[in-house]
């Protein structure tokens, strides 16, 4: 309480008029299930000519071969083009869709219970084995405008020290640079994380293990504050870095990459 002497004055709720509204709404039961996956649409099929090919003997074999070679070559080049796009996008640009699925959350036969107690003290280290990250953590704060400040060091991540401590209930936030002016920084490969990957935050001498559940990339002017910082029942973690196109005029990347994770007890 900011002013314990006047709790009444602080009441923002004169009444709770929504009382009696049966929040127990049976309509919730009727949420339709997602439609079953339909058969994949058939690929564009050539006209049914295979059986009739013998009847059309006028096509010279050489022409036929040329056509096939042409199609083959075009397909190959387009595949090459797509491959270039996907593979050579650069750290900020490179981004493929996250896994649609979810890794079995019942680790070691027991489902995850939320709200586990964490060791006291702030976090000192973040480790992400799948992208070979092992970084000390510096505390991060907001500037005068309320914007979270990035870590001072490009090769070291930071945790939002005015928010939730990783391992405590709620969404803890760790941010790190994707690159410096010269090359890769601590979270250069953050976009490679997928559901099921493990993130460990060392707090005191105790590791707190998180499992990635989802990833996202958002324009910075449409940053999903509610989704990233909104209250959660259990201990969760968000890892944030930059991504997308580089805005030369502003000297910054257009997007933020966010990795969502939940604490697992094991």
């Amino acid at each position, binding site marked *: 309480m900011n002013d314990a002497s006047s709790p009444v004055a602080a009441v923002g709720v004169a009444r*709770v008029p929504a009382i009696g509204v049966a929040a*127990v709404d*049976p309509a919730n*039961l009727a949420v339709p299930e997602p439609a079953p996956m339909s058969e994949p649409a058939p690929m564009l099929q*050539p006209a049914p000519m295979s059986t009739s090919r013998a009847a059309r003997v006028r096509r010279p074999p050489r022409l036929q071969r040329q056509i096939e070679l042409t199609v083959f070559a075009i397909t190959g080049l387009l595949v090459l083009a797509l491959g270039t796009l996907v593979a*050579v996008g650069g750290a900020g640009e490179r981004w493929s869709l*996250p896994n649609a699925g979810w890794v079995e959350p019942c680790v070691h036969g027991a489902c995850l219970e939320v709200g586990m107690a964490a060791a006291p003290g702030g976090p000192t280290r973040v480790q992400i084995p799948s992208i070979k990250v092992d970084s000390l953590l510096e505390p991060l704060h907001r500037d005068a405008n309320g914007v979270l400040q990035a*870590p001072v060091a490009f090769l070291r991540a930071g945790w939002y020290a005015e928010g939730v401590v990783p391992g405590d209930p709620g969404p803890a936030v760790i941010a790190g640079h994707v690159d410096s002016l010269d090359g890769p*920084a601590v979270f250069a490969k953050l976009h490679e994380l997928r559901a099921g990957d493990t993130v460990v935050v060392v707090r005191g001498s105790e590791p707190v293990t998180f499992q990635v559940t989802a990833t996202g990339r958002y324009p910075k002017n449409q940053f999903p504050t509610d989704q990233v910082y909104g209250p959660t029942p259990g201990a969760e973690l968000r890892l944030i870095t930059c991504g997308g196109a580089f805005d030369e005029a502003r000297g910054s990347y257009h997007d933020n990459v966010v990795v969502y994770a939940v604490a697992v007890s094991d």
Partner: protein
Amino acid sequence: MTHPHSERVSPTVPIGRRVAAIATAVLVGAGLSLLAAAPAQGAGVGYVRLAHLSPDSPEVDVYLDPTGPNKPNFKSKVFGGVGYGVVSAYQIVPVGSYLVSMRPKGAPPNTPTTLTATVNVLAGKAYTVAGVGKNVDLGLRVLVDDLSRPQSGKAKVRIIQASGIAPLLDISLPNGTPIAVGVAFATTTAYQQVAPGTWSLQLKPAGSGTASTVNTTLDSGDVYSLIVLDDANGRLKAEVRVDARGGSSVPVEGVGTGGGGLRSSNPLAMIGIGVAMAAALGLLSVRLFRLSRRRS
């Protein structure tokens, strides 16, 4: 052949069309891939918890089972011997559909269920599936727990009214200021934005009865449920549950976490794509041109 006419089509048309059609298909496919690669959003998880809020109902075993296409994603879970007033911890579950069912305590899993309800879990959302009402009209209800961020500097709290001795419940501050009036048994209020701090609340059945006092501290940015129950002595009692924590200081906007040192590879990628696309189109037109000349 059963359709001789269809075979007399001149080969030039289908061949040209075939090439064009395949090329078009590949180009369209490429376009779709480009579109699909732009946004990114994970499947994620949601939260489900279970509650027994029926004052005169015996203990039950509660089952949480994935249903439909969600079956492979989650291992069924059983909560044994759940009695009145018990609210489980939130379970983290993959998004998808779940069947919650109740059986009498100790009944084998293959016996008929007493009650069932389906909950469709969306990413980041939370649900409380509760047995509510008196035993004679016991029902399983799915409450959507709105854990969205409270307004800046506020906490959120709601009342879950599960006291059978108070068909209608009044809640007020010690000085008589009403907080909630006439909350019906087996209902839940919407979450209300309230000032954080330590609160002393007077609970009593509407119109009569003795007030019970509950003291609770609500923190800014957090979300709470005040669960009102009967105690063993026929009086009201209340438990305050932390539904979710968010912290009081939320930054605005995103984070500036890049120097741009890796950006140089982007133009290279675009050039590579451009060259390959141009080459493909050039080859396509040359081949089509030659094909048409060959046949004319």
